[in-house]
């Protein structure tokens, strides 16, 4: 069913992955799945969710700000609000855009106003997300639209997430055709980790996107319209973006579509372990002609994954 969000027609990525048909197939229990977004936070003003498409306090839980060590994960960059909107902006509210996932979202701030984090904030973010999901006896999908070098600490954190049944979906990175960042590159070692690359509307790998043998799948990552804070942040100043809604590109924008799809799969089939959720996504992806280092198993197909 076509949602009534006025900007939905501009969300080419949702059409590309057959989101509308997928929504018709979703009849599961979304209450037992948490999608944790580890990023630069979410639009928050005076301690309250402030974006009209991301302001449902029953869905969006404000987790820790691990940059400033407080409980206010307000986004001062814009990246996190954009990523969160792609995955889970409120749908059918006659406002802005539509998100793929309408269940619960935990927002944890691990990137600062320059969009940088560290292996320490990554590890702390994973720990906080696992604890939150455990307290609620929920499945946990972790979206990490970031990355960097391999490290013992990062790997320890991934191991902890895996041992606790979580699925980690990570952006492959924007290394201009270079190697895949970590933690995404752990996808070849752990069947509970996914490395997500980006494609444009012609299903080609954009020049900025990373590539490599660890690639799991790709999703739309160019010219992606989503939410931005309704106040000025780094992304408005540095990249001349508008407040509230604008387009960004990157494997960061591709990963949340995969995370949201994983959450939908888990809500429909709650008995699946994390590795099988990944398997459902990769097995249902539409192959793309070319190297598997560019596209992995191909473009995600939400309808097929939920059938």
């Amino acid at each position: 069913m076509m949602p009534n969000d006025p900007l939905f027609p501009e969300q080419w990525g949702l059409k590309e992955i057959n989101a509308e048909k997928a929504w018709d197939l979703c009849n599961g229990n979304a209450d037992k799945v948490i999608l944790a977004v580890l990023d630069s936070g979410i639009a928050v003003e005076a301690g309250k969710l402030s974006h009209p498409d991301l302001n449902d306090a029953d869905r969006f839980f404000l987790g820790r700000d691990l940059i400033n060590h407080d409980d206010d994960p307000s986004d001062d960059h814009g990246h996190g609000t954009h990523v969160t909107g792609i995955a889970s902006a409120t749908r059918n509210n006659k406002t802005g855009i539509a998100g793929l996932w309408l269940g619960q979202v935990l927002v944890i701030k691990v990137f600062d106003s320059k969009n940088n984090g560290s292996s320490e904030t990554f590890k702390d973010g994973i720990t906080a997300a696992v604890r939150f999901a455990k307290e609620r006896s929920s499945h946990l999908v972790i979206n990490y639209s970031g990355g960097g070098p391999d490290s013992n600490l990062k790997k320890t954190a991934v191991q902890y997430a895996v041992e606790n049944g979580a699925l980690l979906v990570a952006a492959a990175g924007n290394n201009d055709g270079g190697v895949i960042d970590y933690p995404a590159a752990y996808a070849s070692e752990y069947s509970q980790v996914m490395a997500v690359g980006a494609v444009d509307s012609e299903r080609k790998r954009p020049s900025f996107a990373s590539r490599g043998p660890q690639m799991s799948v790709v999703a739309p990552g160019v010219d992606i319209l989503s939410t931005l804070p309704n106040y000025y942040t780094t992304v408005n100043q540095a990249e001349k973006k508008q407040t509230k809604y604008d387009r960004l590109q990157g494997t960061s924008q591709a990963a949340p579509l995969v995370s949201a799809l994983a959450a939908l799969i888990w809500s429909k089939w709650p008995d699946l372990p994390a590795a099988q959720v990944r398997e459902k996504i990769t097995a249902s992806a539409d192959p793309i002609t070319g190297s598997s280092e560019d596209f992995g198993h191909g473009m995600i197909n939400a309808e097929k994954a939920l059938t």
Partner: protein
Amino acid sequence: MSEALSFRGRPVRESKRNGRKVRYVADQLVVKLKSRFLNDSKAQRKVVEVLPRKSNLARGFDETGMAIINLPKSADLFQVARKLEKQDEVQFAEPNFVDSGS
């Protein structure tokens, strides 16, 4: 190496490792004890004893055996890490690597 960025007010250094650009907090070390030494104050003390003067714990040992140590500017981060990794109690000692949103 360059030192233009900062993370949480601390300088960030950039270098190359295995052909990959890596960035890390220039004066910070992540230390993790092996699981059998968790909450072992003797093992924690041993770590602290080999640190250069004017080092301080940015974050004391937690329940997973991890600590974050701020080193003085003059210290060689990698040399200190190598020294710590020679201790039987230490699982690893490494820089606090910087990630970026992509």
